């Protein structure tokens, strides 16, 4: 793994966590949407927080696609699991959501589990793949 590839994974984490947090903040301003009023979702796109959230998620999409071009799906997802911690911290300190000790333990288990996976090789080699690089 080169520095560029680590930076791509970091970008996946940063854009994903900030995008979700901006969306959550925007949707709290928009309020609950009933199943009978789903078209109101389009109106939610006009909320500035939702708009910035979508912009961040576009950055997430590009960096995610780049990461998937050099590593397995089952490597990229665990390797970017630190995003759950970032999201929890943003939810706690910015959105003032309550996180109980059990929820913190749950987040720790998720990060521990996905950290296990990240210790393996990043790419499964298949004959005929466009990308020939493997390993970590």
């Amino acid at each position: 793994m080169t520095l560029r590839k680590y930076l791509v994974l970091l970008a996946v984490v940063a854009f994903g966590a900030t995008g979700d947090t901006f969306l959550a903040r925007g949707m709290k301003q928009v309020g609950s949407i009933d199943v009978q009023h789903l078209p109101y979702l389009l109106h939610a796109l006009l909320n500035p927080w939702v708009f910035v959230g979508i912009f961040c998620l576009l950055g997430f999409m590009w960096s995610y696609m780049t990461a998937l071009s050099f590593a397995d799906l089952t490597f990229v997802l665990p390797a970017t699991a630190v995003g759950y911690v970032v999201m929890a911290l943003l939810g706690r300190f910015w959105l003032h959501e309550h996180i109980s000790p059990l929820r913190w333990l749950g987040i720790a288990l998720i990060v521990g589990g996905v950290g296990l996976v990240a210790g393996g090789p990043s790419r499964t080699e298949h004959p005929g793949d466009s990308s020939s690089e493997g390993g970590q």
Partner: protein
Amino acid sequence: MRVLYTWVCIAITVCAAAAGDVFLALAMRRIGDLGELRKQHGFRAVLGRVLGSSALFCGIFFMAVAFFSNLVGLSWADLTLMGPASAALTFVTNALGAKLFLHENVDRRRWIATIFVCLGVLLLTRS
């Protein structure tokens, strides 16, 4: 009723996100390393290959379904429930999808990690 809606949203988000990820991973595997491709052929060639992939558009379609389902869910539930629950369950379905459809090497270490993630999700949703 709101709890039921939240979990339906999580289920739709998880299935659509997993399908989207599998299609996207398939597309990017066929296209190759974007960084290397850009170095060798330039940004226009990268854009051409990315936009010419039908698997990529299938992936984006399912991701859009997951996105709107997630958006609805976020209007009912906390980010700290909706985010980790849907993302962690997506991780499990992704591991299955990657093994079945992408033939990735999902070994014992990765399955143990999946159990850790499931326990983590249970703790997150029951506390």
